[in-house]
């Protein structure tokens, strides 16, 4: 009974995390802290077993609570049917992209955004380097149709894989001669220029399909 009055330093803080550790909902960092503490503190490990018992019995208890009858669903959909009609769902590209944004978890978004920020910084340097090279070599340019006009070319919308490193993203962009035309947009998405000229849709789709296979790519689709 006096166990809590003679706690090892820091045990209380770790002990408070034990329920989440048992449920597997701690961050990797906190989970490691708990694992380390459990390995060196036998009393904490004993208490962790109590937590695991609680977890198991809470699940057991909840699983015995049954489920609502079909009446609940009937009632719900009767109410829904009585609601004013809404606009119909569109299956346009814009709608699908919106759905894609919605499908990203906050954690994925954060990781994707981080990767995307790195990517744009690297890409900016890459583009600047290319421009400098072009300037020094005096390449041919027209006044009316610069190669980097914002709306010229063929494009895809891309989200980099959350686990992709900045090196992998840079290599992916360089290897495939892609440049970022705009972004980041919501969901860590970027518009990338696949070609500086308009290419047939079928050809663009084929290129994008091939790009999808790269491990640096989380999502890619053609866009206008």
């Amino acid at each position, binding site marked *: *009974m006096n*166990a*809590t009055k003679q706690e090892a330093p820091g045990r209380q803080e770790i*002990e*408070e*995390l034990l*329920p*989440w550790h*048992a*449920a*597997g*909902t*701690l961050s990797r960092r906190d989970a490691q802290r708990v694992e380390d503490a459990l390995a060196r503190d036998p009393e904490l490990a*004993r*208490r962790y077993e*109590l*937590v695991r*018992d*609680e*977890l*198991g*019995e*809470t*699940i*057991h*208890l*909840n*699983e*015995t*609570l*049954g*489920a*609502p*009858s079909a*009446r*609940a*669903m009937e*009632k*719900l*959909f009767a*109410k*829904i049917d009585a*609601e004013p*009609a*809404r*606009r*119909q*769902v*569109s299956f346009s590209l814009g*709608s699908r992209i*919106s*759905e894609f*944004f*919605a*499908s*990203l*978890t*906050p954690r994925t978004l954060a990781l994707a955004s981080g990767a995307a920020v790195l990517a744009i910084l690297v890409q900016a340097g890459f583009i600047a380097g290319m421009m400098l090279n072009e300037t020094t070599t005096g390449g041919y340019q027209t006044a009316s149709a610069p190669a980097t006009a914002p709306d010229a070319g063929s494009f895809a919308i891309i989200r980099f894989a959350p686990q992709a490193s900045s090196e992998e993203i840079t290599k992916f962009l360089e290897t495939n001669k892609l440049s970022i035309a705009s972004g980041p947009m919501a969901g860590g998405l970027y518009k990338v220029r696949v070609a500086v000229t308009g290419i047939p849709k079928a050809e663009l789709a084929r290129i994008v399909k091939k790009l999808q296979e790269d491990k640096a790519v989380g999502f890619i689709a053609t866009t206008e």
Partner: protein
Amino acid sequence: MQTTSDEVLISRIAGGDRLAMQVLYARHHVRVYRFVLRLVRNEATAEDLISEVFLDIWRQAGKFEGRSAASTWMLSIARFKALSALRRKPDEELDDEMAEQIEDHADDPETALAKKDKASALRQCLARLSADHREIIDLVYYHEKSVEEVAEIVGIPEATVKTRMFYARKKLSELLKEQGIDRGWP
């Protein structure tokens, strides 16, 4: 095979897709019902509330921004509905006798004979916790919610989530001790 995410379903629901609503309901109604039932402790009330919760999801789908997991958002709505119902009908909150009835639903004869087992005693004590303590234990252990998600659902700071969980567990030990089971903690 990849299933359509909850977030995508909700975006479709926002556009009036009834089928998406059916999928979302099928996916979550049991867990939401159990969460509500553990709060209101009345099966008929819980069943009525489920319709209300999912009707709110239908109506508010367009406001869902995906900042938190869809299940966290749905449990927040369910909690609000359950607490509102309890405020309207406080007499519906279950007493100890009804708590035992809930426990008894699952008891087959073999389980009944083993009532004095530690696991069974633990379940009985879980059913006897206060509403605040039941709620946090269920959210953490059954609904697998992180500290941050519990804080969002319950509307309390993360530090309070941890201490409330700690005291819920402490109370559980006390209730077990009253039944003659000393866990040696706290």
